[in-house]
């Protein structure tokens, strides 16, 4: 397994706040990782550091073995990553769906025809071809989420970073998203509080606590539907 991203002793804190990451070490190649942690523990911050929206104050970030320092390194790194925001309104900024999806491919230098072709392919793959000419701000929350996923997938990323993708989705859309992610063969880090969803779409579980990342041992923890003292918390059975 080759490592795609590597955090080496990274520290990060927002101005005038407690440190969010404290000598954090982490690496990912082609795993499918679920990331949990309480509200405000720094999950979103971690993803932002991985894509270079925030820069570590200490420690280093490696991309395919070489340290990421210049803006050019970051640009190369971002080509390999697909970041799905918590709020789709931040991600869909073009007037129509097809324009929004074609935005990335056009930036990568594809021609108009190629970009349109590729965007349509991805819409078809996600089974939302009928949305192509819709006005983005009129879509429902679930439709927005799927379109946002399409804008990310159309860039052919090697690693997906998804920030609470099932928030505010109805069961049907959630099922659809689960099925899509289950069948995709792309490495991923998924932040979620939705245990069933994580079980289906990831293989390993990490939790973030007091500025450190821990891998939860023994593969995937699980929750039970039945009433149980720890039914709503991750736990292991002996």
């Amino acid at each position: 397994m080759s490592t795609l991203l590597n955090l080496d002793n990274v520290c990060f804190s927002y101005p005038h706040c407690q440190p969010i990451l404290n000598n954090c070490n982490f690496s990912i190649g082609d795993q499918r990782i679920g990331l949990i942690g309480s509200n405000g523990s720094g999950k979103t911050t971690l993803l932002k550091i991985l894509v270079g929206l925030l820069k570590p104050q200490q420690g280093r970030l490696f991309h395919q073995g070489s340290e990421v320092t210049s803006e050019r390194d970051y640009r190369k790194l971002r080509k390999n990553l697909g970041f799905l925001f918590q709020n789709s309104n931040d991600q869909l900024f073009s007037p129509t769906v097809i324009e929004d999806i074609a935005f990335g491919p056009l930036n990568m230098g594809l021609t108009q025809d190629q970009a349109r072709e590729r965007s349509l392919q991805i819409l078809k793959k996600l089974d939302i071809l009928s949305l192509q000419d819709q006005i983005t701000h009129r879509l429902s929350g679930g439709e927005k989420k799927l379109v946002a996923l399409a804008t990310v997938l159309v860039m052919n990323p090697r690693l997906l970073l998804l920030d609470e993708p099932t928030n505010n989705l109805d069961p049907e859309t959630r099922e659809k998203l689960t099925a899509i992610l289950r069948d995709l063969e792309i490495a991923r880090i998924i932040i979620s509080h939705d245990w069933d969803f994580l079980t289906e779409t990831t293989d390993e579980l990490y939790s973030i606590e007091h500025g450190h990342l821990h891998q939860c041992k023994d593969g995937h923890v699980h929750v039970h539907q039945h009433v149980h003292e720890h039914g709503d918390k991750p736990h292991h059975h002996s």
Partner: protein
Amino acid sequence: MKEERFSVGGSPLHRGSVKLKLCGGLLFIPAFAITPSYREALIFLFISLLLTAIARLPLKHVINRLVLANFFSLFLFITLPLTYGGDPFLIWGVPVSKAGFLLGGLIVIKTNGILLALIALLGTSTVSSLGHGLNALGVSDRLTALLLFSYRYIFVIEQEFKRLQRAAKIRGFSPGTNVHTYRTFGYLIGMTMVKSWDQSQRIHDAMVLRGYDGQFFPLTNPSNRSPFDLILFLGLVLASIILTFLGYLG
């Protein structure tokens, strides 16, 4: 907030080329606005009505729009005859300026005619395609992007404001004329602005992550120009030129 109510429909104007509609409108509307005489203004108005008929717009909504605009021109129509100079005549013992009366009438015709033409020509396209049309006509990428972004986020900002307003209302806030009200509205507006600023940062982030580095390449629609578009365009151009000449010479 008004959505793009007139932009859906199957008329030739809806399907037509945005570029040609824009060009035709850019000539027709100023020509209509500057015409000095009644005869030509009425012909212009007739053409506007014809365009509205071709666009098969929902009559009720069109009239709603016109009523709104006519509040203003009605005001002019009433005040102009009373304040304009020239030789007066008497209505119910009140001296009324004939020139003012005529001018007021001309303004009413032009307001309605131009509004109709605007709705029929530009209202039948979505803002997004108008943006691209303007871009294709040489408006800079930056201005086009500004137009499209403003349009995209004005609704989000409005929603944000309404959400805050609702939150205030739920907690028992009812506006009055007192300091508490002014302060609360100050907070609401300030909060909306802060949130919009934050959001613009996040949108910029999202764009950077997808390879944006300052240059904007919009996806353009393959243009499909029909004979109708050309006829419409030539008709508007010819009518504008001929009527302007007649208005000033005849």
